[in-house]
């Protein structure tokens, strides 16, 4: 049972705390910021850029089994999903489904 307890202590110390510190820091910083301020506008741009960086990194340098799917298929699937999103009344569902179908068919054709 102590092994189990150890796992939860580790969860709090090396999972929860180092992660939550950014949210709490954000809470402190956001205290004096209002929606109209320049700092808010800048933080929004930074957040979008980080997220875009995360997206592109997963596609270009993918984790786990996604790395087994060739780059061309990953890029093709992203492009098809994006076009489907624009074509089908800006539907996020349509885009995600189209991208997933292309990725799966491509990976199947490649022999995964």
């Amino acid at each position: 049972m102590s092994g189990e307890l150890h796992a939860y202590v580790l969860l709090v110390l090396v999972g929860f705390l180092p992660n939550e510190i950014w949210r709490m820091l954000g809470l402190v910083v956001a205290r004096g910021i209002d929606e109209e301020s320049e700092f808010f506008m800048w933080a929004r741009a930074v957040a979008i850029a980080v997220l875009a960086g995360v997206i592109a990194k997963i596609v270009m340098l993918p984790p786990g089994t996604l790395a087994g799917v060739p780059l061309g298929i990953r890029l093709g699937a992203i492009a098809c999903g994006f076009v489907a999103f624009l074509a089908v009344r800006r539907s996020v569902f349509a885009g995600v489904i189209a991208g997933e179908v292309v990725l799966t068919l491509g990976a199947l054709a490649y022999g995964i």
Partner: protein
Amino acid sequence: MPAPMPSAPTIDPPQRSATAAFLAGFGAAWLSVMAYVLIGTYIGLAALAHDFGFSLWWLAASTVLVWAGPAQVILVSALGAGAAPIEVAIAVSLSSVRLLPMVISLLPLIKQPQTRNRDLLLPAHLTAVSMWIEALRLLPPLPREHRIPFANGLGLSFLLAAQIGGGIGYYLATSLPPLLSAALLFLTPMSFLISTTRNCRLLSDWLALVFGLMLGPLLAFWQVGLDLLWTGMVGGSLAYGIYRLREARR
């Protein structure tokens, strides 16, 4: 599309309208693709946790406490592989830097001058990419006093979706076939890209998206330390600067 909030009649007690806003947020989550993306992503994460010998309860607790997919992947795989705790903590923390600008660009949308700090703790904790993207889209039309309960409802609903995915993944147990696991991993970039695009309104939003897409892999490829931090600072600041210059010329 969620039904628009009815304009609150003056006789409506504030408590009741707060509950209604919470439930509206809770319901809105299931109309978003993100709820289903979370289920899929956490099926994959649970399969990983199962492989590394973590219990379902531990996984569920990590979802409640950490509530950040990439950080949880690192936590499970690094702890499972027996990495030194301090190294795991640093890797988790680096992967979660994105939460800082997200919280800073969310809280000013929901707080009012009289809002107490402790009322912002829950929305700050629930801030993750899924909740942030959908909150930015759904909050602006709502009356300000409804935004905190709405954001809490939205975030808790997404958390529930993740737990459902975790339960499914854990009980499917046996390692997922590579094709399925690749398709689940692909859900994140595909849905994030489209949802972020849908949210872009200002020129600075569009520029930040394009700069981030270019800088992210470039800096990672060149093995620049803290690559995502630099992607955000450089890409975001450039986007903001160009937007400001254009506004000033008008």
